[in-house]
Structures are given as C-alpha cells and as structure tokens.
C-alpha cells in the first residue's frame, strides 16, 4: 500500500496557510496514484510529530511543501517525524539537489522515503511559468514581458536565494520572457526597486512562497508599491513608475504544484502510473482564459 504524506508549515493565525496543501493533496488523491494521501503540519494538526501514525500504508513517501532546503527540511521535519539516524549528509546536497533519504521512522517503526522540498525540484520552474500564465490569463505570455522571481533572501536562509536564482536562470535559458530577474525581500537586488531592474513595460512578479500570508499579501504588495496599505487591496495589473506589474501571489497556490509533489515522490521510487500526466492535464484547466 503506497502512501503520500505532504508536510507543510501551516499557521496558528491564517487559514490560507494550509489551503494550498489541502488543494494539492486533493488533486493527487483524484489522480489515484496513492492508496492514501495524508497531510501534516508544523503549526496545525495533525502535527509532524503525529502524522505518520495516521498512515496505514507500508510504502511511505514524505514530501515537504517548502520552497528551499534549510532549517525546516534539514532539522525540524526529520526531528519531529523521528527519522532514525537522520543526517543532512543523507541528501548529499549542494543546497539545491536534495532528492530523498530512506530512513526508519521511529514513530511507526517503518521505513519512509523522505524527499527533498518541492521548491528546489526542476519541475518547479514550470510552475513559476504556469503562474505567470495564470495571472496574465495568457498561455503564451513571455514576448515583451519581464518576469521577476521573488524570494526571502539570504538573511533568512542561504538556500532560499539559491532556489530563486536556480529557477530564474532556468527560465531565462528558455528565452521565453524578454527579461528574467531574481529579486529578494531582504537583500539586493531588492523587490522594492522592481521597476529599476526592468526595461519591459509589463512585468510578472511571482513570489517563490508556498502559501499566501503576511509576506505575499502584506509585505511585497506594499514594498513594490502596488498599494500604500495592503488592507486596501490592489489591482492586477497595477502600474508602478510606468511599469505594469502583474502580481501573482504565492506560486505555491498554483494547481500545477501538485505535479512537483508527485515528481518528488516519483524520484524517490513511487509508482505513479499515469498520475503525472493526469495532474498536468487537470491543472491546465485552471489557466484557461
């Protein structure tokens, strides 16, 4: 019996935090590749500490719904899941290349496949592009348009910036958008000065965040100048200093994220049948214009 466990941050204050986790879990359930799909959280229930005991299957894949490798994926999740003998060296990662580690979870005395985070998987690049398509309503968006991929920056976590750069580079190499920039909230180049970094009249701004919350709904819109006060809201697009900014909100809310979760499990050995193709098809509907 093959089981998928999606682990995510969650929130004590904001129900939007876990909403994408539930949405992607539902998409994957509908694709039918797993006998069960469970969700576990750091701030909600079931907690990381208790999620594995809700799992019935004996072939268990744990996929962290986090944007980068770092404190959560390397320390908190393995500790709270009680993965015996976890050592970050198991991933042999340069900060972007964590794939999976197979370890016994002491809580259930069974092996689990602990996967790298969704945010650093190469398939995440497609989700960022899809997000740009969704927010502009244009499945061919790119020509004459700039793309800004925005992350926290190194003050929080060195690997966070690595993930942002990685995807920005990959999108730039596709020659689809006129310009692609990696921008940050707390280091240069800063998202506050967005129009300075682009010549294009239209710029799509995609935050590399899992869920909408304080950073994507309050910080970035105010920093970029989409609004003076986030409670007043903003239009998409909004013109800032002659640049038309298409603000996408958290990339993690894009339905295609379910595909990255599946890719992570497949890389760790899960048998998905035709689920990957199913999910790519069903999530495509969401971009219809």
């Amino acid at each position, binding site marked *: 019996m093959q089981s998928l466990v999606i682990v995510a941050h969650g*929130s*004590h*204050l*904001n*129900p939007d935090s876990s909403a994408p986790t*539930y949405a992607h879990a*539902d998409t994957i359930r509908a694709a039918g590749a797993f006998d069960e799909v469970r969700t576990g959280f*750091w*701030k*909600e*229930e*079931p*907690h990381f*500490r*208790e*999620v594995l*005991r*809700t799992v*019935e299957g004996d072939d268990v894949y744990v996929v962290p719904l986090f944007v980068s490798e770092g*404190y959560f994926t390397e*320390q*908190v999740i393995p*500790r709270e899941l009680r993965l015996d003998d976890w050592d970050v060296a198991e991933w042999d990662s340069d900060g972007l290349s964590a794939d999976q580690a197979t370890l016994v979870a002491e*809580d259930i005395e069974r092996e689990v496949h602990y996967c790298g985070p969704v945010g650093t998987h190469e398939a995440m690049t497609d989700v960022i592009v899809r997000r740009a398509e969704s927010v502009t309503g244009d499945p061919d968006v790119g020509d004459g348009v700039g793309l800004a991929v925005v992350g926290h920056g190194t003050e929080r976590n060195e690997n966070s910036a690595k993930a942002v750069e990685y995807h920005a580079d990959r999108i730039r190499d596709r020659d689809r958008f006129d310009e692609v920039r990696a921008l940050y909230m707390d280091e240069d180049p800063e998202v506050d000065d967005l129009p300075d970094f682009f010549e294009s009249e239209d710029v799509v701004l995609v935050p590399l965040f899992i869920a909408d919350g304080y950073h994507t709904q309050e910080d970035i819109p105010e920093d970029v100048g989409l609004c003076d006060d986030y409670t007043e809201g903003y239009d998409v697009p909004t013109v800032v200093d002659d640049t038309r900014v298409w603000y996408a909100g958290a990339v993690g809310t894009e339905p295609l994220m379910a595909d990255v979760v599946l890719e992570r499990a497949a890389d760790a050995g899960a048998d998905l049948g035709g689920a990957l193709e199913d999910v790519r098809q069903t999530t495509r509907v969401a971009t219809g214009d």
Partner: protein
Amino acid sequence: MGDTTAPSSTSVPAIELPSEAFDAVLDELATRDPDEPLRFEGVTVEAEASDDDVATTYRLDPAGKEPQTGLSEAALHEALDARASAVTDWYAFEHVVGEFGPRRAFLRWIEDADGETVASRYAALAEGITRAWGELRITATVTDRGARRYDVRHVDDAGTPVEDLDRYDDPLEARELVTTDAAGRYRPLKTAPTLRDGWAFTDLGPKAVYETVETIYPATVPNWHREREGDLDVSHWRETMARQSGIYGVVKTWDRGEGYEHVNWVAEACCADSQCLKRREWEYDEETDLDVDGGDGVFPCREPCSLVVSAARKWTRLESEQPRSYTFDLTPSEKEQLEAIVDAVADGRAAEIREADVKDGANRLRARFLRAKRFDDDGTLCGVATDPDDAE
C-alpha cells in the same frame, strides 16, 4: 463516556447473507489449511480435504452441537445464511474495516464488539448505537445485509431532524467545518470545543466514518488506540521544551529548576476542558506531576502542542521580568471591575455580555467609563508609568 447507549436486549434484526460475504468466506476457506477453521461467533467452518476432480465439501461445527460434514457449497450457504449475523459481523470487520489498528479498534469500540455478543450488538445496532467523541455524536446502525452505516453530527444537534442540517457525505468536506468557529474565527486548534454545529454526515461506511473523525480531530484515534494498547508515547513538558530549536529554543530557559508552578499556569490556561478536549497526559517530567487536572476527554494529549509551545515562547520572555510595586487609586468597585474584565476575557465571555447590562463589570459601556475616568491620554492606568524611569 457521557453520551453512550449500551447495547440493549431488543430483538435481533433479520439479516440476509450477501453474496460478497459468502464469496469472501469461500475465498478465505480456500486459502486455509484444513486444520485452521474459520471462526464466526458460535460456529467454525473448514474446507474438507478433497482431490482436484471433486467439488470441495465443508464441515460446519456449531458450538455445543453435532458437526455437519460433507456440506456442498449450496448447503454451506444455507447453513451460513441461518447464521448471517455472525458471518456478516466477520465480513464487516475482516473485509470492510480492514486491518489498520486505529480504525479497527475505533469501529469495534463504537459497538463494543470485544464485549458484547453479535446478537446483542445487532439488536442494539438496529436501534442505533451512539458514541461521543469530543463534540461529535456518532451513531452506528446495521442494514438488513449486515453492513454498518454511520451518522456523524455535532452533539448539540442530537435531537435535530436531519432535514434541518447541512448534509455531507465526503469526509474531506469536514475540513471546511473545522476551519472556523460559529463566529467565523479561524480555529488554530482542532480539538478546541468550538466545533460549529448545523451539519450531518449521513449513511457513511466504516472507512468514511473513520476518515471523517480523522479530519475533524486529527490523530486522536491513533493516539487513543495507542493508549488502549498501553504504548502511548507521552512526551512531558521538560523533554518537549528541550527539543525546541530556532525561535522556540528560548522556551527551555523558562524552567529554572525552581519548581513547575509556571507549567501549572500554562496547563490551567491552555489545557482545561474549556479550551481543549484532549485529556492531558503529559506532566512536568516523568517524576513530577502537575497540580492541575488533565481533563475528562476520551482521547489523550501526549505532549505540549504547537500552540502551547508558541504561547510558552511569549511567556518565557514576559516571565523574565521582575515584579514591581505600583500604586493605583481605585474604588473598590473599580478593582472588582478589573477582575471581572480579566475573567470575562479569559472565559471568552466578553462578546456575550449584553449591550446594556451595566451590572456586569466587563460590559463595554462600563469598561469605556473606566477608561475615560482612569486612563490618561497615553492610555496609562491612573497616569502611573509602566517604567518608573519614564515618570515625569
């Protein structure tokens, strides 16, 4: 257990043996050794040794009666149809509920399958067996083919006609019910006694009722099951705080080896039944119990939850302050009013106090009057500076 109806001695319903249950019996017998009979309540059945050219015959051994041997498949069907309650009971748990320990234990507990006979359970199921789980009211019934069906609703809706409730049948739909309370506020703790009412999951099968409960009260059944099995992994306050890292690493400094009164206060604030329906099983440490009652919940709490850890982080900082003496001039009624306001907020009662109920010290108009009279323009009580160095 409050809301429980014990199996009664009303009449046993007529049960018809469904073909899927009989087929499952035949499949099971085909895989067993002849000396490993299949046991139903009151009767065992086994396949008799046969060679490949002859149809299998069966032996049926009713407890306390003469065994029947050489039964054809048709004769076996007839004999088992006469004992359809026992056979469908086996089928329900072995083939529909399945092996997963928490689910199996929970569904057997609902109808006391490890205590009562099939006959008395089926009689009780015909009437409906009801169990409480937190704020849930779960009612189990049986169809005339021996299948279990379940109804889940809020305990407060026990007497409400189902037509008056919002009907659901997909367990995952329960997520929308648990996200906010009746006032529309986000519920950060799923076991808080703030589950809203007005809905019903009806005609659920065994797996669906389990998933519904798992969605509303995550991991409570697995933890309850582990406790019943004697292996609940309780993590006490000290070890839980010692495990914290990052921004929560500071909480371990709150324990200063000067007793555990602060943890009593945490448990009284966060873990009382009025705040969380789990029964607190964790203590200060392995040797030191807290002085506060753990509550009466049916499912256990095995360690301080993330909400408690977050609050403890805040209290660690606040409690590092030293007390100071302040002097305020208040009338006796004003002192009591402050106490009433703290009580009303702590008990979640502030919003319920009627607009014009000026007898209640926590009434809004009373609070506004006190503020107008006793606070200065900076919002300072009686003009007394919080930090004496700030006093003018």
